[in-house]
Structures are given as structure tokens and as C-alpha cells.
């Protein structure tokens, strides 16, 4: 699992705050105040506490556009991922994230599949969603420790 300690911090110090990451980030434009450049800087200057307690961290969609465009080849998305992991380990999980995680624990899916979904699929000529192999899902959640984290 990606954890902040495992991240090559030296590389982060090469960030010169050009803001191409934030300027490219779809989440930053959707959510006021989510700002990958700022998260990186806050992490470096104010420490990990300051970033993992801020729920906005979780807005990253892990699309990796920021990484594609970073002129310094900094793994911005990887950094955000590892910070989210660390936040979760320390129990800083936003309610909405926890809710969808619990949903996965229960149903194997992040969202509730309503009858409406089925009818839309039918109209589009798609087959109904298959059954979730819950045993397998539980196995994965156990092994990754997610069950405990949410539990």
C-alpha cells in the first residue's frame, strides 16, 4: 500500500509550485478549495497532520492528469493516494467515503443498485448487472484490511 513514509520525499522538494497540476485537475474545478499543489506544499511545510485531517483530500479522483503534466515528474496522484491511505489508517475517513466503503462491505458495490438502474440498462440494451461474488469480495476486503479499517 502507498504510504507517505514510502514516498520519495526528495522529489517532492523539487516542486516549484508552477500549479500545472491544479490547473489540470478536474476535481479542483469541481470542488472549491481542493488543490493538489496546495496539498503538496502544506504537507511539506506544515506536516502530515495538516493534510490528512482535511476532508478535501478525498476529492482526488486519481485520474493522474496532474502527474502527466507535472514538469518535474512528481507523482502527485501517488502522493495524494498515499495521504488518503494514511488518513484512513488514522481514522480520518469522511462520512461519505465511509458510507460507500460500508456499502461495499455489505453489498460488494459502492452505490446502491436501484430498480431504476436496471431499467436504464435495459433501455440501453445492456444486460442486468451480474450478482456480486460476495465471498471473493469479502476475501479481498479481509486481506487488504479494509474490513477492519471501516469496521
Amino acid at each position: 500500500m502507498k504510504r507517505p513514509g514510502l514516498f520519495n520525499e526528495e522529489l517532492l522538494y523539487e516542486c516549484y509550485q508552477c500549479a500545472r497540476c491544479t490547473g489540470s485537475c478536474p476535481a479542483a474545478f469541481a470542488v472549491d478549495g481542493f488543490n493538489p499543489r496546495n496539498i503538496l506544499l502544506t504537507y511539506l511545510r506544515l506536516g502530515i497532520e495538516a493534510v490528512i485531517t482535511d476532508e478535501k483530500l478525498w476529492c482526488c479522483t486519481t485520474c493522474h492528469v496532474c502527474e502527466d503534466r507535472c514538469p518535474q515528474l512528481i507523482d502527485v496522484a501517488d502522493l495524494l493516494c498515499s495521504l488518503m491511505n494514511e488518513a484512513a489508517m488514522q481514522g480520518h475517513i469522511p462520512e461519505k467515503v465511509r458510507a460507500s466503503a460500508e456499502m461495499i462491505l455489505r453489498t460488494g458495490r459502492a452505490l446502491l443498485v436501484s430498480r431504476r438502474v436496471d431499467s436504464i440498462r435495459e433501455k440501453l440494451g445492456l444486460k442486468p448487472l451480474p450478482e456480486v461474488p460476495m465471498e471473493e469480495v469479502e476475501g479481498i476486503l479481509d486481506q487488504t484490511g479494509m474490513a477492519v479499517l471501516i469496521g
Partner: protein
Amino acid sequence: MAKKGKADRQDKVARRATAENGPRIGVYVCHCGLNIDGSLDCEEVAKYASSLEGVVLAKDSMYTCSDAGQEQIKSDIREHNLNRVVVASCTPRLHEPTFRAACVEAGLNAYLFEMANIREHCSWVHLHDRQGATEKAKDLVKMSVARARLLQPQVETEVPITPRALVVGGGVAGIQAALDLADAGYKVYLVEKEASIGGRMAQIDKTFPTMDCSICILAPKMSEVGRHPNIELMTLSEVESVDGYIGNFHVRVKKKPRYVTDDCTYCGDCIKDCPQHMPNEFDCGLSTRRAIYSPFAQAVPATYLIDMDSCMNKHGIVACDRCYQACQHKCIDFSQQEEILDLDVGTIIVCTGSDVYDPTPLTELGYRRFPNVITSLEFERLINAGGPTGGNLIRPSDKTVPKSVGFLQCIGSRSKRSNPYCSNICCMNTIKDALLIREHWPDTKIYVFYMDIRAFGKGFEDLLMRARREGVVFIRGIPGEILQDDNSYSLKLIGENTLLSKLYEYEVDMVILSVGIEPRKDSAVVKRLLSLPSMADGFFMEAHPKLRPVDTPTGGIFLAGCAEGPKDIKDSVTQASAAASRANILMAKGKVTVEAITARIDPERCTGCGLCARVCPYGAILVDEETKVATVVEAACTGCGACCPECNFGAITMRHFEDHQILAQIDALAESDAGGKILAFCCNWCSYAGADFSGVSRIQYPAEVRIVRTMCSGRVDPKFVEYAFAKGIAAVLVSGCHIGDCHYINANSQTEKRVQRLWRKMARLGLNKERLRLAWISAAEGMRFSQEISALKEIVEKITPEEIEKGIEAFAPKRLPKGEHPDEATRPV
């Protein structure tokens, strides 16, 4: 080379003179105030020195380098008939020339002087180990005395310098260098690849920081080149080959035909009828030209030319003769052929300039996809009165004047996705461009998106402040991407203003990408032709970044302008004048002395195999195919010694760094307690200087190490290392400049190969490979040097007597090539 015969004769005379008396060595141990005597016992070292074989007197003194100290040495040489002098004091990089001069004044050949570095390499780095430092100093003196016994007098040769210069590249740097040298009275050949001289400066409109019209200040210089009696201008020409060495280069130039004779009056009648239209390169393809054309109005030489790639006439078949018919002076000549010109020159100045970065790979910026995204060089052509639009800034999409523009900084610079360095000129160029737009179209909204504005030069900050005052908006934060409105072709810039931590969206009519500067695409060719080293970024490397900024490591070849690194016009011209002056110094002197440390090849032993020639970074070894004998071109040889270990027949002698002299140093250090000692080979320019720097910085490290200096790590013969192990020395460090920084272009790549070969051999023989270490240490890495020694000390502590014994057996003298037997090696003269 004219003096070689004479030099050889003098050499022999000198050799005889010293051989007759046997070595009579004087040793001087310097206290350097308390710098040395404070942490080791100089008196004891001097006493010890007097007991060494060949030493007739040994003294310690307060300051050996003082006038009194030098006088003492001089009078001792005369009085005691000394024929060798050893001074144990500071680094030879500091005072070797001082003491050599003193010896010469007293009639002793400079090469019979030797130094032991007991300050930087001893007293300063073992401040708290008086015993260890004193023992080490004794060892260092013993090694120097052993070497001194075997030193030979040397005579430096003189090489004549041809008083003619070649300048490659006719940008502003090449123009300046050529004019300076021509004014000084030298014949100058100026070779320019394009149809006209002028370079980038001819393309740009105004110049920062003064906002002068670029071509107005350049054109007079260009015409001066064209008519200067001492300058032979060759356009459409490229260097094909370069042979020779400092002062004596033979250069072959290929000159492409113009198909228009020198009688051309530049009337332009010919072009109107030419049916072939091509993109005009000079205008970055923003306009067209005919097949017969002149790149720009002020071109020098002021004659038209035919681009045969676009002309309808091919392979000598004339399908169209409209230009021929139009020309009243009958200057069109389709029969012109390519010419090869042979030049003999003494010095060469490389001014090949730079290319600009092509931002196409940065797809998020839409260059080439969106017509209104242009580069700063294209902008220069658009705003130039002599350009395709007559100086009207218009959008390529609809030919309207943009009401708003955005400049994006650092495009292709300061980035691991393109070029890592700052391109130096683009910040100021943008400020200049912004002000130009303000001047002509004051209502235009101008945004500059930047990370840092670098306005470091004289007058730069003033210009920046003027732009701010005049309403140019500076926004910190480079857009993440550019989007185009497909109807209006306007552009949307999205990004973050980092100073406000707020996202922005700006709509502008035009975007100018402030592209960086990069090495010429064909710079590898020039690099190969002239054996020039380059930096990791591809720009040519200077001999020393501070003290020899326009010299290249190859004697007689100099650099100026953007070929050396991104810079503005002022710096290019400054460098050009500096390079011209350096070349002038050589040519005015008319001759150059070559330090007598060059390689010599014994024709009796040489089999002409050519292995040495293959590793010589300077191409200084020539193998005669008929006689099967290799010879060293003394003026081209720099004395790196990379060739010497390559010879399987012991045919190469490195003067002043001879095999037996180095083996004698190893013998001396191995005489006592070899199993506890570290032998370090350090190259003169980097790792030895790095060790000096440890001393200057008082970085402490274990006293077990003894340094042997070679000019280059490429001199370190694997047999030296084997000999050291055969003598029971615990560990060996081979060190040199970092790969890519070698003072001798790439001689250290041989070092690497040889050490790897040794490691494989040690593994085969069951020896602990850790006993041999390879390290690249720059002159600034004093800490690194001390770390390497500390690491080796740890290894030495772990080595068992059995392991040492195993090494002794594995590399026992019987394995040494004939003629290198230690007894023979250390036999005094």
C-alpha cells in the same frame, strides 16, 4: 613539432648530466607556521628524511615558500650540488610552480622537483592524531623521495601557431569574434551553414533591455564582415573534417553552390518569375519564398541563391530558365558545383548558436493544433516590420489584431519533461514583447503566466517595472491546459493563481509560448568533428566554468555565444570578444610550449596494434600503416596517460609519470605495515583537488591513506593496483572526475572499464573485491573524499592477514610483465 629534434638532443644532454652524479636530494619540510607543525612533528619528519637513500640534506623551515625559504633552496642546490629537490608542504596545486621556478633559477631542471603534500592531505585532516599524522608525513616524504630518485629532467617543446583563425557559425557571436580577430590583423575564415550570416539576432525585432531595433544594430556589423579584407566568408558551408592540433589545424570545408554568381546586384528581378513557392524558413514558415530567393533584405552576402530542393531543375536538366531570362547581368549559373576547401588555421572559435524548443510534444498547449497558439520566435517575425505581416500583429486564424494575449513562460525549460535548465532569455524576451504590443496597440490586454520572473541583468528590473506600470498583468501559475473555441478560435487558459490560491479561466485571442533555447540539432556533428565535450544538457563544455570560460579542453579551440549555453546578445558578444582575445594571445605569441608530461612511444617495442590510438580522447596517436609504428603528436597530447596502460608491449612512456616512478612510490609506502594502509590514486583535476578541499575544510578522516597523484585516473594502470596487492597493501582507491566531467574529455571511461576488469579478475582469484574501490569525486566534494576513505578504513579493519597473503600470492611479481620487475623498477639512476 619543428623543435622536436633539438628537444630530444637537449633531453639526452640533461639526462646524462644528472645520471653521472647519482641522486643528491635535498628535502625541505615546511612548518607553514602552525598549519603543519601544529599537528605533526616537522623536525622529526626532517630527521627521518635525512636517513633516506639519496638524501644529502634535510631541513625544516618556518615558511619554505617565503623568499628566504626559496633562497635557502637555491643556495643549497649550488653549494651541495643537489640534483633533486623535495619540498614537503602544501598541495602542489598551489606552490609547485613557485618551487619549480626557484629550482630553475639555481640551474636545476624543473622536472627534478617533487612535492609531498603534508598539509591538505595530512596535518589539516588529522588534527587530533599527532602520532598518526607524523607517521603519515614520514611516509609521504619517503614516497616523494623514492619518486624523486627516479625523476628525469625534461625539456618542454615548442609548437608554432599558424596566424589564421576559423570561426564556425555566423550569428552575432561569430560575427563579433571574426571582426575582432580580423581587426587585429589575422586572416579569418568564417564558415556559416545558412545562406546569410546573422543568426537568431537577425530574426528578432527589438532587443531587450534597451529595445534597440535588432537588425538595425546588427546589419552594419554584417556588412563589415562582408567587406573586411581579412575575412573570407563562406556561406552555405559546413566543416567536413578537422585534423591536427593546437596551432596547426587542417580543416576541410564543404561549400554548397548558390547557383548565382558574385556579380549579382541584388536587384531582385529574378524572383518575380519563379513559379516555385516554398515556406520561408527565416520567417518560421509564416510566409513563402520562391526557389530563387534571399532569406531577408539585409542578408550578407547580398546575393540571391537558388534552393535546388525546390527548383524545378534537377540533376543538371534545365526544365525552367525563367530566372536566367529575367537576370540582366546573367548571374544565374546552373552548372555550379559543390566545392571542397582546405584551410590551415592555428585557432578555431565555435559559435554555432542554438535552436529553439519545439513545444509540439506538450499536447495540452495545443501548439500546431490551435492556429492562434504561437511561439515567441514566431512572434518576433510577426511583429517585425521586415516580417511577413509588415509588423502587424495578427492572429493566424483570421488575420485580425488580437485584443488580448497571454504569454506562457518556461515552455520547454526548467522541466524534466523537456530541458531541465533555465533558458535565461525568455523572461526578458516576454517583457520586451509585452511592451512592444503595448506600444503599438495600447488597448490590448496582456497576461503573463509565470513561475518566477528572472530579471537579473543590468537594466532588466527597470524593464520589468515598466511593464508592470504599463498594465501588463503578471499571474503566478502556469495554465494546466489551453482550450480552443472552435468558432471564434479564441483560447481559454485554465489554471491556478498560486498567490491567491484561486483557480482562473482567462479567455484570450492569442497565446505566445515563451519557448526555451536548446542545443543545435546537429551539434553532435560539430562535437565529433572537434572532439568537444558537452554537458549533460548538450551544450558545449568550457575548460573551466569560472577561470577558463571560453576555452575548450582542447588547446586552440574556443567557444562563444549560445553554443556554450543559453544567453542574451550582450553575453554572446562579450564571450565572442573574450574568445577572440584568447585566440589572439596564442597567435600573437606565435608558439606554444607543451608541458613535458606527454606520452612517448618507443618504436622498437611498438607493434602498431593501434590499441592506444583507440583510447586517446584527442586523437593524438597516429599509427603509420606502412612502418607499423604508432607516434604521438606531441602538441595534441595532453598527457592524460589513458593510452599507457593500454599498451601490451610496454612501448609507451608517460614522461614525468613513468611506470617505475609510480611503482617506486608504492614500494615506499608498502615498506612498513602495508596491511594496514590504503593507497589512493587521485587525478590532478578532480579527486586530488577534492582531497585538498577536505583539507581546506578541515574534514577529518583516517590517517591510513596515502595518495599518489596522476594527471588523470586514466593513467592508473591495472598493474599498479595488482602491484599494490602483491606488496600486501590492504586497500586501493582509484578516483577521478565524475563521468562526463573528465578533464580529458572521456579518458575516465577507460578507468571504469579497467577497474571493472580488475574486479572480475579479483573475483576469479577469490579475492575480496571490496579491497578495490572506484569513486568519482569532484574538486568540490571534500566530504565525499573523506567518506570514501572512512568506508575503506572499515573494510581494512575487516581484512584478515590470510586475505592479505592471498593477494600477495595472487599478484606475486612473477605475474608482472617483463621490464616492470620491482627490483629493476626501483633501481636508482
